[in-house]
């Protein structure tokens, strides 16, 4: 916990990492100043892209003592404002799952190679990033905790599967190797409360270590202070749940 007599500092910058298929992509890298060792986090940004809210989230994780990296999952769509780039990805029907998993895996490997981490790495994502975080944690060895905030499309009806998203993330649940924290709004439509229940049942069925929190009066994206969806009380409690969960599992 921070107290006012502590020295603190972080540094944050753009770096290049190796993503899916060996591609070079950009990542935002934020870390506490000091020798460590620190726990580490990979952030999977949301549908609106590699935007200011997510860069601030990276600062926030670094400020809480996590070496943090956030790949630009939309790197291959070209460059412009985060909104313009995200609009192009939206028009193209979103990201291929394998590509997102590959980029997030590359981010985890970048962290693993650092000398100042304590060996524990978590992954955090919201919206489509929650879904990508879940897919990655299930499919790839190397994560010690996952935070899924309102990941839409973890539960997918068979007729919504396609070339880019051939397998519903929930079908990988048996392979999840680490504890999961889920944060959801009960007014959300992606995922619906029923889909959250279905996800929870799958975790129970496979004896996974999970912690789900559902908030009344909150819908999709209720952490985002930049949107009307923001719910201060629920978001504050949700962030406290995030820090507590990560400290327990990565600290």
């Amino acid at each position: 916990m921070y107290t006012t007599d502590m020295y603190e500092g972080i540094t944050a910058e753009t770096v290049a990492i190796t993503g899916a298929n060996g591609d070079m992509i950009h990542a935002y890298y934020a870390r506490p100043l000091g020798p460590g060792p620190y726990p580490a986090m990979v952030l999977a940004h949301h549908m609106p892209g590699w935007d200011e809210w997510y860069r601030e989230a990276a600062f926030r994780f670094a400020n809480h003592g996590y070496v943090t990296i956030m790949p630009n999952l939309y790197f291959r769509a070209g460059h412009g404002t985060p909104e313009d780039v995200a609009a192009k990805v939206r028009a193209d029907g979103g990201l291929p799952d394998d590509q997102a998993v590959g980029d997030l895996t590359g981010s985890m490997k970048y962290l693993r190679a650092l000398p100042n981490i304590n060996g524990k790495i978590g992954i955090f994502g919201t919206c489509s990033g929650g879904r990508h975080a879940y897919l990655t944690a299930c499919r790839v060895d190397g994560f010690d905790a996952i935070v899924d905030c309102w990941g839409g499309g973890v539960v997918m009806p068979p007729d919504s599967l396609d070339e880019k998203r051939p397998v519903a993330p929930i079908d990988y649940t048996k392979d999840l190797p680490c504890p999961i924290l889920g944060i959801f709004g009960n007014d959300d439509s992606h995922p619906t409360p029923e889909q959250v229940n279905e996800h929870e049942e799958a975790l129970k069925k496979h004896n996974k270590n999970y912690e789900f929190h559902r908030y009344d009066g909150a819908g999709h994206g209720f952490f985002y202070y930049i949107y009307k969806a923001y719910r201060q009380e629920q978001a504050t409690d949700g962030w406290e749940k995030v820090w507590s969960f990560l400290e327990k599992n990565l600290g």
Partner: protein
Amino acid sequence: MCTMIVEKIKIEGSGKGKSGWFKLEGANVSYDHPFNAPYEHALNIDFVNESKGPSARVAVELSEDAARELIKTITAVLDRAKEGGHLESQRVKV
């Protein structure tokens, strides 16, 4: 991306973006998360020229009611233009 409901069409015309007017080559119509409109999902139209990169974009994010009213209005205006014999003149390149 949460709904993944999107259609892409080719169009002709001009759009005014951050750097002024540019030639439009397509319109991407989605019902998905907007960036600014205060809805979880909106009817989004991006008028674009992909050959000029992601920034060549004119965006609107509409409520369902607004989108349906816009469709009716565009159709009504085109019908009036047709009745008035104006549509042929639009085909003249200037």
